[in-house]
Protein backbone atom coordinates (compact mmCIF):
# COMPACT_ATOMS: atom_id res chain seq x y z
CA UNK A 1 0.00 0.00 0.00
CA UNK A 2 1.27 3.46 -0.91
CA UNK A 3 2.23 5.90 1.80
CA UNK A 4 -0.56 8.28 2.73
CA UNK A 5 2.00 11.06 2.58
CA UNK A 6 5.44 10.75 1.09
CA UNK A 7 7.80 13.69 1.35
CA UNK A 8 11.34 13.21 0.21
CA UNK A 9 14.21 15.63 0.10
CA UNK A 10 11.94 18.67 0.14
CA UNK A 11 13.57 22.06 -0.36
CA UNK A 12 11.80 25.39 -0.33
CA UNK A 13 13.22 28.86 0.00
CA UNK A 14 11.60 32.26 -0.17
CA UNK A 15 14.07 34.67 -1.69
CA UNK A 16 17.25 34.40 0.31
CA UNK A 17 15.57 32.67 3.26
CA UNK A 18 15.63 28.88 3.25
CA UNK A 19 12.44 27.77 4.97
CA UNK A 20 12.83 24.04 4.37
CA UNK A 21 16.27 22.67 3.72
CA UNK A 22 15.89 18.95 3.48
CA UNK A 23 12.79 17.32 4.84
CA UNK A 24 11.84 13.70 4.30
CA UNK A 25 9.21 11.65 6.07
CA UNK A 26 6.47 9.15 5.28
CA UNK A 27 3.05 8.86 6.83
CA UNK A 28 1.45 5.40 6.84
CA UNK A 29 -2.24 5.07 6.03
CA UNK A 30 -4.39 5.21 9.15
CA UNK A 31 -1.88 6.67 11.56
CA UNK A 32 -1.63 10.01 13.31
CA UNK A 33 1.68 11.53 12.36
CA UNK A 34 3.09 14.55 14.14
CA UNK A 35 5.50 17.21 12.93
CA UNK A 36 7.06 18.66 16.04
CA UNK A 37 9.26 21.71 16.13
CA UNK A 38 9.46 25.27 17.33
CA UNK A 39 7.78 28.09 15.44
CA UNK A 40 9.73 28.96 12.34
CA UNK A 41 11.25 25.47 12.00
CA UNK A 42 9.63 24.92 8.59
CA UNK A 43 6.51 22.99 9.58
CA UNK A 44 4.05 25.35 7.95
CA UNK A 45 6.13 25.62 4.78
CA UNK A 46 6.17 21.83 4.55
CA UNK A 47 2.39 21.78 4.95
CA UNK A 48 2.01 24.50 2.32
CA UNK A 49 3.96 22.39 -0.16
CA UNK A 50 1.85 19.36 0.71
CA UNK A 51 -1.46 21.18 0.30
CA UNK A 52 -0.32 22.65 -3.05
CA UNK A 53 -0.32 26.22 -1.73
CA UNK A 54 3.40 26.47 -2.42
CA UNK A 55 5.56 24.87 -5.07
CA UNK A 56 8.62 23.05 -3.77
CA UNK A 57 11.96 24.09 -5.23
CA UNK A 58 13.09 20.48 -5.18
CA UNK A 59 12.00 17.13 -3.85
CA UNK A 60 9.03 14.78 -3.95
CA UNK A 61 5.64 15.47 -2.39
CA UNK A 62 3.02 12.75 -2.77
CA UNK A 63 -0.44 12.11 -1.35
CA UNK A 64 -1.60 8.49 -1.64
CA UNK A 65 1.01 7.97 -4.33
CA UNK A 66 -0.11 11.03 -6.30
CA UNK A 67 2.34 13.84 -6.92
CA UNK A 68 1.09 17.11 -5.47
CA UNK A 69 3.24 18.95 -8.01
CA UNK A 70 2.27 17.07 -11.16
CA UNK A 71 -1.36 16.27 -10.33
CA UNK A 72 -2.35 18.95 -7.84
CA UNK A 73 -6.08 18.60 -8.42
CA UNK A 74 -6.10 14.86 -7.76
CA UNK A 75 -3.97 15.44 -4.66
CA UNK A 76 -6.30 18.18 -3.40
CA UNK A 77 -9.28 15.82 -3.58
CA UNK A 78 -7.57 13.43 -1.18
CA UNK A 79 -6.52 16.07 1.31
CA UNK A 80 -8.50 17.87 3.95
CA UNK A 81 -6.77 20.95 5.29
CA UNK A 82 -7.37 22.75 8.56
CA UNK A 83 -5.19 25.85 8.60
CA UNK A 84 -3.62 27.33 11.71
CA UNK A 85 -5.59 30.51 11.46
CA UNK A 86 -9.16 29.63 10.67
CA UNK A 87 -10.37 31.76 7.80
CA UNK A 88 -14.15 31.74 7.84
CA UNK A 89 -16.31 34.20 6.00
CA UNK A 90 -17.78 35.89 9.03
CA UNK A 91 -20.92 36.95 7.23
CA UNK A 92 -21.86 33.39 6.28
CA UNK A 93 -23.51 31.05 8.74
CA UNK A 94 -21.76 27.81 9.60
CA UNK A 95 -24.15 25.82 7.46
CA UNK A 96 -23.72 28.16 4.49
CA UNK A 97 -19.96 27.85 4.75
CA UNK A 98 -20.19 24.07 4.68
CA UNK A 99 -22.47 24.21 1.64
CA UNK A 100 -19.95 26.44 -0.11
CA UNK A 101 -17.17 24.03 0.81
CA UNK A 102 -19.21 21.08 -0.48
CA UNK A 103 -19.63 22.81 -3.84
CA UNK A 104 -15.91 23.59 -4.04
CA UNK A 105 -15.25 19.86 -3.63
CA UNK A 106 -18.04 19.06 -6.11
CA UNK A 107 -20.05 16.83 -3.82
CA UNK A 108 -23.41 15.92 -5.29
CA UNK A 109 -25.96 18.16 -3.58
CA UNK A 110 -28.25 15.50 -2.01
CA UNK A 111 -25.34 13.63 -0.46
CA UNK A 112 -23.73 16.88 0.67
CA UNK A 113 -26.80 18.10 2.55
CA UNK A 114 -27.04 14.90 4.53
CA UNK A 115 -23.33 14.81 5.21
CA UNK A 116 -23.29 18.42 6.42
CA UNK A 117 -26.04 17.65 8.93
CA UNK A 118 -24.13 14.57 10.14
CA UNK A 119 -20.93 16.50 10.66
CA UNK A 120 -22.70 19.39 12.39
CA UNK A 121 -24.20 16.85 14.74
CA UNK A 122 -20.93 14.99 15.32
CA UNK A 123 -19.10 18.18 16.19
CA UNK A 124 -21.95 19.52 18.33
CA UNK A 125 -22.47 22.46 16.02
CA UNK A 126 -26.13 22.04 15.18
CA UNK A 127 -27.24 24.75 17.63
CA UNK A 128 -24.86 27.25 16.09
CA UNK A 129 -25.21 26.23 12.45
CA UNK A 130 -27.48 29.11 11.46
CA UNK A 131 -25.52 31.82 13.23
CA UNK A 132 -22.99 33.90 11.33
CA UNK A 133 -19.48 32.60 11.94
CA UNK A 134 -18.39 36.08 13.02
CA UNK A 135 -20.13 35.39 16.33
CA UNK A 136 -18.27 32.10 16.95
CA UNK A 137 -15.74 31.52 19.72
CA UNK A 138 -12.30 30.13 18.92
CA UNK A 139 -13.33 26.58 19.75
CA UNK A 140 -16.45 26.76 17.60
CA UNK A 141 -14.48 28.18 14.70
CA UNK A 142 -12.00 25.34 14.91
CA UNK A 143 -14.76 22.75 15.05
CA UNK A 144 -16.48 24.26 12.03
CA UNK A 145 -13.17 24.25 10.19
CA UNK A 146 -12.70 20.59 11.10
CA UNK A 147 -16.14 19.81 9.69
CA UNK A 148 -15.23 21.70 6.52
CA UNK A 149 -11.95 19.81 6.17
CA UNK A 150 -13.72 16.46 6.52
CA UNK A 151 -16.70 17.16 4.30
CA UNK A 152 -15.33 15.33 1.27
CA UNK A 153 -14.14 12.34 3.34
CA UNK A 154 -10.46 12.88 2.56
CA UNK A 155 -7.89 10.13 2.89
CA UNK A 156 -5.55 12.47 4.74
CA UNK A 157 -6.52 15.29 7.07
CA UNK A 158 -3.78 17.88 7.54
CA UNK A 159 -3.97 20.15 10.57
CA UNK A 160 -1.53 22.98 11.13
CA UNK A 161 -1.21 23.71 14.87
CA UNK A 162 -4.78 22.57 15.55
CA UNK A 163 -5.04 23.76 19.14
CA UNK A 164 -3.04 26.99 19.22
CA UNK A 165 -5.06 29.62 21.03
CA UNK A 166 -7.77 27.21 22.15
CA UNK A 167 -8.91 26.84 25.75
CA UNK A 168 -8.16 23.56 27.51
CA UNK A 169 -11.64 22.16 27.03
CA UNK A 170 -11.75 22.85 23.29
CA UNK A 171 -8.30 21.39 23.05
CA UNK A 172 -9.44 18.09 24.52
CA UNK A 173 -12.49 18.07 22.26
CA UNK A 174 -10.20 18.41 19.24
CA UNK A 175 -7.84 15.69 20.51
CA UNK A 176 -10.68 13.33 21.17
CA UNK A 177 -12.11 14.00 17.75
CA UNK A 178 -8.80 13.31 16.04
CA UNK A 179 -8.61 9.96 17.83
CA UNK A 180 -12.11 9.07 16.60
CA UNK A 181 -11.02 10.08 13.14
CA UNK A 182 -8.06 7.76 13.31
CA UNK A 183 -10.25 4.94 14.57
CA UNK A 184 -12.45 5.46 11.52
CA UNK A 185 -9.43 4.98 9.26
CA UNK A 186 -8.54 8.55 8.26
CA UNK A 187 -4.85 9.39 8.19
CA UNK A 188 -4.04 12.48 10.22
CA UNK A 189 -1.00 14.70 9.86
CA UNK A 190 -0.64 17.39 12.51
CA UNK A 191 2.00 19.97 13.18
CA UNK A 192 2.50 21.31 16.66
CA UNK A 193 4.99 23.00 18.86
CA UNK A 194 3.24 21.52 21.90
CA UNK A 195 5.10 18.47 23.13
CA UNK A 196 2.14 17.11 25.08
CA UNK A 197 -0.05 17.33 22.02
CA UNK A 198 2.25 15.22 19.85
CA UNK A 199 2.98 12.88 22.74
CA UNK A 200 -0.71 12.35 23.42
CA UNK A 201 -1.82 11.91 19.83
CA UNK A 202 0.90 10.84 17.46
CA UNK A 203 1.69 7.25 16.55
CA UNK A 204 4.87 8.50 14.97
CA UNK A 205 6.52 11.86 14.65
CA UNK A 206 9.34 13.76 13.03
CA UNK A 207 11.15 16.48 14.91
CA UNK A 208 11.94 19.44 12.70
CA UNK A 209 14.46 22.12 13.51
CA UNK A 210 15.71 24.88 11.20
CA UNK A 211 14.19 23.26 8.13
CA UNK A 212 15.68 19.81 8.71
CA UNK A 213 14.28 16.58 10.17
CA UNK A 214 16.50 15.81 13.12
CA UNK A 215 14.84 12.63 14.33
CA UNK A 216 11.77 10.51 13.69
CA UNK A 217 10.02 7.46 15.06
CA UNK A 218 7.32 6.65 17.58
CA UNK A 219 7.29 8.74 20.75
CA UNK A 220 8.38 5.77 22.87
CA UNK A 221 11.15 4.81 20.45
CA UNK A 222 12.52 8.31 20.49
CA UNK A 223 12.38 8.51 24.26
CA UNK A 224 14.06 5.13 24.66
CA UNK A 225 16.77 6.20 22.28
CA UNK A 226 17.60 9.14 24.53
CA UNK A 227 17.57 6.72 27.43
CA UNK A 228 17.94 7.29 31.13
CA UNK A 229 15.38 8.32 33.69
CA UNK A 230 14.81 11.80 35.03
CA UNK A 231 14.83 12.66 38.70
CA UNK A 232 13.71 16.03 39.97
CA UNK A 233 14.92 16.70 43.48
CA UNK A 234 14.19 19.53 45.85
CA UNK A 235 16.39 19.72 48.95
CA UNK A 236 14.13 22.38 50.38
CA UNK A 237 11.17 24.11 48.87
CA UNK A 238 13.51 27.02 48.12
CA UNK A 239 17.07 25.77 48.29
CA UNK A 240 19.85 28.32 48.76
CA UNK A 241 22.12 28.41 45.72
CA UNK A 242 25.18 27.34 47.69
CA UNK A 243 23.49 24.33 49.21
CA UNK A 244 22.16 23.25 45.83
CA UNK A 245 25.67 23.45 44.36
CA UNK A 246 27.08 21.36 47.19
CA UNK A 247 24.39 18.71 46.62
CA UNK A 248 25.12 18.82 42.92
CA UNK A 249 28.81 18.14 43.50
CA UNK A 250 28.00 15.23 45.78
CA UNK A 251 25.37 13.70 43.44
CA UNK A 252 27.55 14.07 40.37
CA UNK A 253 30.10 11.76 41.95
CA UNK A 254 27.59 8.88 42.06
CA UNK A 255 28.46 6.38 39.30
CA UNK A 256 24.93 6.06 37.83
CA UNK A 257 24.25 9.80 37.66
CA UNK A 258 24.95 11.11 34.17
CA UNK A 259 24.29 14.78 34.67
CA UNK A 260 22.94 17.23 37.23
CA UNK A 261 21.48 20.61 36.42
CA UNK A 262 20.44 23.21 38.98
CA UNK A 263 17.24 24.91 37.91
CA UNK A 264 17.06 28.39 39.47
CA UNK A 265 13.63 28.97 37.95
CA UNK A 266 12.16 26.37 40.31
CA UNK A 267 13.75 27.23 43.65
CA UNK A 268 17.14 25.71 42.74
CA UNK A 269 15.74 22.25 42.25
CA UNK A 270 18.11 19.62 40.89
CA UNK A 271 17.44 17.78 37.62
CA UNK A 272 19.28 14.49 37.30
CA UNK A 273 19.62 12.05 34.44
CA UNK A 274 20.29 8.53 35.73
CA UNK A 275 21.17 5.35 33.86
CA UNK A 276 22.22 1.78 34.57
CA UNK A 277 20.94 1.42 38.13
CA UNK A 278 17.43 0.16 38.87
CA UNK A 279 17.42 1.11 42.53
CA UNK A 280 18.54 4.70 42.00
CA UNK A 281 15.89 6.39 44.18
CA UNK A 282 16.93 4.56 47.36
CA UNK A 283 20.53 5.04 46.41
CA UNK A 284 20.13 8.82 46.04
CA UNK A 285 18.13 8.98 49.29
CA UNK A 286 20.85 7.19 51.23
CA UNK A 287 23.65 9.30 49.77
CA UNK A 288 21.78 12.51 50.64
CA UNK A 289 21.12 11.28 54.19
CA UNK A 290 24.79 10.36 54.60
CA UNK A 291 25.79 13.89 53.64
CA UNK A 292 22.94 15.17 55.86
CA UNK A 293 20.93 16.93 53.11
CA UNK A 294 17.19 16.98 53.75
CA UNK A 295 14.70 16.02 51.04
CA UNK A 296 11.66 18.19 50.37
CA UNK A 297 10.49 16.25 47.36
CA UNK A 298 11.80 13.78 44.83
CA UNK A 299 10.07 12.64 41.67
CA UNK A 300 11.13 10.31 38.92
CA UNK A 301 9.98 10.21 35.31
CA UNK A 302 10.74 8.61 31.98
CA UNK A 303 12.32 10.92 29.42
CA UNK A 304 9.85 13.22 27.67
CA UNK A 305 9.82 14.39 24.07
CA UNK A 306 11.37 17.59 25.35
CA UNK A 307 14.37 15.55 26.45
CA UNK A 308 14.50 14.03 22.98
CA UNK A 309 14.48 17.50 21.51
CA UNK A 310 17.12 18.64 23.98
CA UNK A 311 19.36 15.70 23.17
CA UNK A 312 19.06 16.31 19.43
CA UNK A 313 19.45 20.08 19.34
CA UNK A 314 21.19 20.95 22.58
CA UNK A 315 18.36 23.23 23.68
CA UNK A 316 14.87 22.78 25.00
CA UNK A 317 11.88 23.41 22.82
CA UNK A 318 10.99 26.35 25.04
CA UNK A 319 14.41 27.94 24.45
CA UNK A 320 14.12 27.36 20.72
CA UNK A 321 10.70 28.94 20.83
CA UNK A 322 12.04 32.05 22.54
CA UNK A 323 15.01 32.31 20.20
CA UNK A 324 12.77 31.88 17.16
CA UNK A 325 10.35 34.53 18.44
CA UNK A 326 13.18 37.04 18.42
CA UNK A 327 14.36 36.11 14.94
CA UNK A 328 11.03 35.95 13.19
CA UNK A 329 9.79 38.54 10.78
CA UNK A 330 6.05 37.97 11.10
CA UNK A 331 5.25 40.60 8.54
CA UNK A 332 7.43 38.99 5.90
CA UNK A 333 5.94 35.59 6.69
CA UNK A 334 2.43 36.93 6.28
CA UNK A 335 3.43 38.35 2.92
CA UNK A 336 4.82 35.02 1.83
CA UNK A 337 1.61 33.34 2.78
CA UNK A 338 -0.36 35.66 0.58
CA UNK A 339 1.70 34.84 -2.49
Amino acid at each position, binding site marked *: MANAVFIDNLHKSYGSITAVENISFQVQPGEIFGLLGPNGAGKTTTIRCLTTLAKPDRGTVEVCGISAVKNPR*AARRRLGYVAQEVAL*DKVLTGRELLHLQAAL*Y*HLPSEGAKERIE*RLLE*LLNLTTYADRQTGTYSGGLRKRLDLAAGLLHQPEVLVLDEPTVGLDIESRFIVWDFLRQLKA*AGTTVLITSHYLEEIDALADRLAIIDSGVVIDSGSPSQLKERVGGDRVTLQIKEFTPEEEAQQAKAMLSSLPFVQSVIVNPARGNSLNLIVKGESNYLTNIEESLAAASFPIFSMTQSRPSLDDVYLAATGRTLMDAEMAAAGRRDLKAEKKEE*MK
Partner: protein
Amino acid sequence: MITQSSIQSSLSPDPSLHGGLEDNSSALGDFLQETFALTKRLFIQLQRRPSTLMAGIIQPFMWLLLFGALFTNAPRGFFGEDLNYGQFLAPGVIVFTAFSGALNAGLPVMFDREFGFLNRLLVAPLASRYSIVAASTIYIVALSFIQTGVIVAASAFLGAGLPNIAGLGAIALIVLLVVLGVTALSLGLAFALPGHIELIAVIFVTNLPLLFASTALAPLSFMAGWLQVVASLNPLTYAIEPIRYLYLHSEWGIGTLVMDTPWTSISLWAVILVLLAFDALVLLAIQPLLRRRFA
Protein backbone atom coordinates in the same frame (compact mmCIF):
# COMPACT_ATOMS: atom_id res chain seq x y z
CA MET B 1 -29.02 9.10 17.84
CA ILE B 2 -25.34 8.79 17.10
CA THR B 3 -24.08 5.26 17.22
CA GLN B 4 -20.45 4.28 17.20
CA SER B 5 -20.73 2.70 13.77
CA SER B 6 -22.42 5.73 12.25
CA ILE B 7 -19.62 7.90 13.59
CA GLN B 8 -17.14 5.55 12.00
CA SER B 9 -18.80 5.73 8.62
CA SER B 10 -19.02 9.53 8.70
CA LEU B 11 -15.39 9.97 9.51
CA SER B 12 -13.80 7.33 7.36
CA PRO B 13 -12.24 8.26 4.06
CA ASP B 14 -14.12 7.53 0.88
CA PRO B 15 -11.67 7.16 -2.00
CA SER B 16 -14.55 6.60 -4.42
CA LEU B 17 -15.36 10.30 -4.06
CA HIS B 18 -11.89 11.35 -5.11
CA GLY B 19 -11.57 9.88 -8.59
CA GLY B 20 -8.40 8.85 -10.34
CA LEU B 21 -5.54 10.89 -11.69
CA GLU B 22 -7.61 11.97 -14.63
CA ASP B 23 -10.90 13.74 -14.30
CA ASN B 24 -13.84 11.42 -14.47
CA SER B 25 -16.32 14.16 -13.73
CA SER B 26 -17.62 16.75 -16.13
CA ALA B 27 -15.20 19.66 -16.01
CA LEU B 28 -17.87 22.09 -17.17
CA GLY B 29 -20.35 20.84 -14.58
CA ASP B 30 -17.75 21.26 -11.85
CA PHE B 31 -16.86 24.73 -13.08
CA LEU B 32 -20.51 25.80 -13.07
CA GLN B 33 -21.08 24.29 -9.61
CA GLU B 34 -18.15 26.12 -8.02
CA THR B 35 -18.81 29.39 -9.87
CA PHE B 36 -22.44 29.32 -8.77
CA ALA B 37 -21.46 28.62 -5.14
CA LEU B 38 -18.86 31.41 -5.10
CA THR B 39 -21.30 33.86 -6.68
CA LYS B 40 -23.94 32.90 -4.15
CA ARG B 41 -21.50 33.68 -1.36
CA LEU B 42 -20.98 37.21 -2.72
CA PHE B 43 -24.71 37.80 -2.93
CA ILE B 44 -25.26 36.55 0.62
CA GLN B 45 -22.61 39.06 1.70
CA LEU B 46 -24.38 41.79 -0.25
CA GLN B 47 -27.73 40.91 1.27
CA ARG B 48 -26.36 41.01 4.84
CA ARG B 49 -24.10 44.00 4.29
CA PRO B 50 -25.90 46.17 1.76
CA SER B 51 -24.07 49.38 2.61
CA THR B 52 -21.74 49.18 -0.41
CA LEU B 53 -24.67 48.88 -2.76
CA MET B 54 -26.52 51.67 -0.94
CA ALA B 55 -23.52 53.96 -1.21
CA GLY B 56 -23.14 52.95 -4.84
CA ILE B 57 -26.67 54.17 -5.50
CA ILE B 58 -26.65 57.26 -3.32
CA GLN B 59 -23.36 58.55 -4.71
CA PRO B 60 -24.41 58.79 -8.38
CA PHE B 61 -27.70 60.22 -7.26
CA MET B 62 -25.79 62.99 -5.49
CA TRP B 63 -23.70 63.53 -8.61
CA LEU B 64 -26.84 64.00 -10.65
CA LEU B 65 -28.46 66.26 -8.13
CA LEU B 66 -25.51 68.43 -7.07
CA PHE B 67 -23.39 68.44 -10.19
CA GLY B 68 -26.48 68.84 -12.29
CA ALA B 69 -27.44 71.91 -10.29
CA LEU B 70 -23.97 73.41 -10.73
CA PHE B 71 -24.65 74.43 -14.34
CA THR B 72 -28.41 74.85 -14.18
CA ASN B 73 -28.20 78.47 -15.26
CA ALA B 74 -25.80 77.86 -18.12
CA PRO B 75 -27.45 79.06 -21.35
CA ARG B 76 -29.62 76.39 -22.93
CA GLY B 77 -27.73 74.82 -25.79
CA PHE B 78 -24.39 75.60 -24.18
CA PHE B 79 -23.71 71.86 -23.93
CA GLY B 80 -24.83 71.30 -27.48
CA GLU B 81 -28.07 70.56 -29.25
CA ASP B 82 -30.67 72.17 -27.03
CA LEU B 83 -29.71 70.26 -23.87
CA ASN B 84 -29.79 71.18 -20.26
CA TYR B 85 -26.84 70.08 -18.16
CA GLY B 86 -28.81 67.39 -16.33
CA GLN B 87 -29.47 65.69 -19.65
CA PHE B 88 -25.87 66.06 -20.61
CA LEU B 89 -24.63 64.68 -17.30
CA ALA B 90 -26.77 61.52 -16.95
CA PRO B 91 -24.78 59.32 -19.39
CA GLY B 92 -21.55 60.44 -17.74
CA VAL B 93 -22.83 59.44 -14.32
CA ILE B 94 -24.07 56.08 -15.60
CA VAL B 95 -20.68 55.18 -17.04
CA PHE B 96 -18.70 56.60 -14.16
CA THR B 97 -20.76 54.65 -11.60
CA ALA B 98 -20.33 51.40 -13.47
CA PHE B 99 -16.63 52.17 -13.83
CA SER B 100 -16.02 52.89 -10.12
CA GLY B 101 -18.01 49.84 -9.06
CA ALA B 102 -15.95 47.65 -11.36
CA LEU B 103 -12.72 49.26 -10.21
CA ASN B 104 -13.53 48.09 -6.69
CA ALA B 105 -14.11 44.48 -7.83
CA GLY B 106 -10.70 43.41 -6.66
CA LEU B 107 -11.19 44.52 -3.06
CA PRO B 108 -13.17 41.49 -1.81
CA VAL B 109 -10.63 39.19 -3.46
CA MET B 110 -7.81 41.13 -1.82
CA PHE B 111 -9.46 40.78 1.58
CA ASP B 112 -9.92 37.07 0.95
CA ARG B 113 -6.20 36.89 0.28
CA GLU B 114 -5.37 38.82 3.43
CA PHE B 115 -7.71 36.86 5.70
CA GLY B 116 -6.58 33.52 4.29
CA PHE B 117 -9.99 32.70 2.86
CA LEU B 118 -8.46 32.47 -0.60
CA ASN B 119 -6.32 29.58 0.65
CA ARG B 120 -9.51 27.69 1.41
CA LEU B 121 -10.39 28.07 -2.26
CA LEU B 122 -6.89 27.27 -3.49
CA VAL B 123 -6.59 23.96 -1.60
CA ALA B 124 -9.97 22.85 -2.99
CA PRO B 125 -9.95 20.79 -6.20
CA LEU B 126 -11.52 23.52 -8.30
CA ALA B 127 -12.14 22.62 -11.93
CA SER B 128 -10.49 25.93 -12.75
CA ARG B 129 -9.44 28.74 -10.49
CA TYR B 130 -10.92 31.08 -13.04
CA SER B 131 -14.22 30.32 -11.31
CA ILE B 132 -13.05 32.77 -8.62
CA VAL B 133 -12.65 35.42 -11.32
CA ALA B 134 -15.92 34.44 -12.98
CA ALA B 135 -17.89 34.71 -9.73
CA SER B 136 -16.53 38.19 -8.97
CA THR B 137 -17.32 39.31 -12.50
CA ILE B 138 -20.89 38.02 -12.44
CA TYR B 139 -21.37 39.75 -9.10
CA ILE B 140 -20.00 43.11 -10.24
CA VAL B 141 -21.92 43.03 -13.53
CA ALA B 142 -25.16 42.37 -11.66
CA LEU B 143 -24.38 45.16 -9.22
CA SER B 144 -23.61 47.60 -12.04
CA PHE B 145 -26.89 46.76 -13.76
CA ILE B 146 -28.81 47.44 -10.57
CA GLN B 147 -27.02 50.77 -10.16
CA THR B 148 -27.45 51.70 -13.82
CA GLY B 149 -31.15 50.89 -13.62
CA VAL B 150 -31.55 53.18 -10.62
CA ILE B 151 -29.61 56.03 -12.24
CA VAL B 152 -31.55 55.74 -15.49
CA ALA B 153 -34.79 55.93 -13.49
CA ALA B 154 -33.51 58.81 -11.36
CA SER B 155 -32.33 60.77 -14.40
CA ALA B 156 -35.68 60.26 -16.09
CA PHE B 157 -37.28 61.62 -12.96
CA LEU B 158 -34.90 64.61 -12.98
CA GLY B 159 -35.87 65.37 -16.58
CA ALA B 160 -33.17 63.71 -18.68
CA GLY B 161 -35.72 61.61 -20.59
CA LEU B 162 -35.62 57.90 -21.29
CA PRO B 163 -34.21 56.08 -24.33
CA ASN B 164 -36.43 53.51 -26.05
CA ILE B 165 -36.08 49.76 -25.44
CA ALA B 166 -33.47 49.24 -28.14
CA GLY B 167 -31.58 52.20 -26.76
CA LEU B 168 -31.67 50.76 -23.24
CA GLY B 169 -30.42 47.45 -24.64
CA ALA B 170 -27.52 49.19 -26.34
CA ILE B 171 -26.74 51.07 -23.11
CA ALA B 172 -26.72 47.77 -21.22
CA LEU B 173 -24.27 46.31 -23.73
CA ILE B 174 -21.95 49.31 -23.48
CA VAL B 175 -22.05 49.26 -19.66
CA LEU B 176 -21.33 45.51 -19.74
CA LEU B 177 -18.27 46.01 -21.93
CA VAL B 178 -16.86 48.73 -19.68
CA VAL B 179 -17.53 46.70 -16.52
CA LEU B 180 -15.94 43.53 -17.92
CA GLY B 181 -12.68 45.24 -18.81
CA VAL B 182 -12.36 47.27 -15.64
CA THR B 183 -13.35 44.34 -13.40
CA ALA B 184 -10.68 42.19 -15.02
CA LEU B 185 -8.15 44.96 -14.47
CA SER B 186 -9.08 45.29 -10.79
CA LEU B 187 -8.98 41.53 -10.22
CA GLY B 188 -5.59 41.36 -11.87
CA LEU B 189 -4.35 44.07 -9.52
CA ALA B 190 -5.87 42.26 -6.54
CA PHE B 191 -3.59 39.32 -7.29
CA ALA B 192 -0.55 41.39 -8.20
CA LEU B 193 -0.39 44.08 -5.51
CA PRO B 194 0.92 43.31 -2.01
CA GLY B 195 -2.14 44.36 -0.01
CA HIS B 196 -5.39 46.29 0.17
CA ILE B 197 -3.64 49.58 1.02
CA GLU B 198 -1.86 49.50 -2.33
CA LEU B 199 -5.02 48.45 -4.17
CA ILE B 200 -7.00 51.30 -2.63
CA ALA B 201 -4.20 53.69 -3.55
CA VAL B 202 -4.37 52.58 -7.19
CA ILE B 203 -8.17 52.89 -7.18
CA PHE B 204 -7.83 56.35 -5.67
CA VAL B 205 -5.41 57.71 -8.28
CA THR B 206 -7.27 56.13 -11.21
CA ASN B 207 -10.83 56.97 -10.35
CA LEU B 208 -11.28 60.74 -10.56
CA PRO B 209 -8.55 61.51 -13.12
CA LEU B 210 -10.17 59.11 -15.57
CA LEU B 211 -13.48 60.85 -14.91
CA PHE B 212 -12.09 64.32 -15.57
CA ALA B 213 -10.18 63.13 -18.60
CA SER B 214 -13.40 61.95 -20.23
CA THR B 215 -16.45 63.67 -21.64
CA ALA B 216 -18.54 62.77 -18.58
CA LEU B 217 -18.71 66.29 -17.19
CA ALA B 218 -17.97 68.52 -20.15
CA PRO B 219 -17.96 68.14 -23.96
CA LEU B 220 -14.75 67.73 -25.89
CA SER B 221 -15.06 71.23 -27.33
CA PHE B 222 -14.64 72.80 -23.86
CA MET B 223 -11.27 71.14 -23.29
CA ALA B 224 -7.68 72.16 -23.87
CA GLY B 225 -6.26 70.57 -27.01
CA TRP B 226 -4.09 68.07 -25.17
CA LEU B 227 -6.98 67.02 -22.93
CA GLN B 228 -9.12 66.46 -26.02
CA VAL B 229 -6.51 63.97 -27.19
CA VAL B 230 -6.40 62.25 -23.80
CA ALA B 231 -10.18 62.12 -23.55
CA SER B 232 -10.37 60.65 -27.04
CA LEU B 233 -8.10 57.82 -25.93
CA ASN B 234 -9.96 57.23 -22.66
CA PRO B 235 -12.17 54.11 -22.86
CA LEU B 236 -14.77 55.85 -20.67
CA THR B 237 -15.36 58.40 -23.42
CA TYR B 238 -16.13 55.55 -25.80
CA ALA B 239 -18.90 54.49 -23.46
CA ILE B 240 -20.22 57.94 -22.50
CA GLU B 241 -20.56 59.42 -25.98
CA PRO B 242 -22.68 56.67 -27.54
CA ILE B 243 -24.92 56.53 -24.47
CA ARG B 244 -25.36 60.29 -24.68
CA TYR B 245 -26.28 59.92 -28.33
CA LEU B 246 -28.81 57.20 -27.48
CA TYR B 247 -30.34 59.47 -24.88
CA LEU B 248 -30.90 62.22 -27.40
CA HIS B 249 -31.88 60.29 -30.51
CA SER B 250 -34.46 57.62 -30.95
CA GLU B 251 -33.48 57.07 -34.59
CA TRP B 252 -30.13 55.27 -34.82
CA GLY B 253 -28.49 52.28 -36.40
CA ILE B 254 -25.30 50.35 -36.01
CA GLY B 255 -23.57 52.64 -38.53
CA THR B 256 -24.73 55.92 -37.00
CA LEU B 257 -21.93 58.31 -36.11
CA VAL B 258 -22.21 58.66 -32.33
CA MET B 259 -18.95 60.21 -31.27
CA ASP B 260 -16.55 62.93 -32.32
CA THR B 261 -12.82 62.96 -31.77
CA PRO B 262 -10.31 65.63 -32.81
CA TRP B 263 -9.53 63.47 -35.82
CA THR B 264 -12.71 61.81 -36.99
CA SER B 265 -16.26 60.81 -36.17
CA ILE B 266 -16.89 57.27 -34.99
CA SER B 267 -19.88 55.03 -35.59
CA LEU B 268 -21.67 52.90 -33.01
CA TRP B 269 -20.21 49.62 -34.20
CA ALA B 270 -16.69 51.09 -34.18
CA VAL B 271 -17.23 52.27 -30.60
CA ILE B 272 -18.28 48.78 -29.57
CA LEU B 273 -15.26 47.40 -31.37
CA VAL B 274 -12.99 49.76 -29.43
CA LEU B 275 -14.55 48.67 -26.12
CA LEU B 276 -14.16 45.01 -27.10
CA ALA B 277 -10.53 45.68 -27.98
CA PHE B 278 -10.07 47.32 -24.55
CA ASP B 279 -11.52 44.24 -22.83
CA ALA B 280 -9.32 41.92 -24.86
CA LEU B 281 -6.26 44.00 -24.09
CA VAL B 282 -6.93 43.94 -20.34
CA LEU B 283 -7.58 40.21 -20.33
CA LEU B 284 -4.32 39.63 -22.14
CA ALA B 285 -2.48 41.89 -19.73
CA ILE B 286 -3.73 40.14 -16.59
CA GLN B 287 -3.16 36.61 -17.93
CA PRO B 288 0.41 36.36 -16.61
CA LEU B 289 -0.68 37.68 -13.19
CA LEU B 290 -3.47 35.14 -12.87
CA ARG B 291 -1.42 32.30 -14.26
CA ARG B 292 1.38 32.95 -11.80
CA ARG B 293 -1.08 32.52 -8.96
CA PHE B 294 -3.34 29.91 -10.46
CA ALA B 295 -0.81 27.56 -12.03
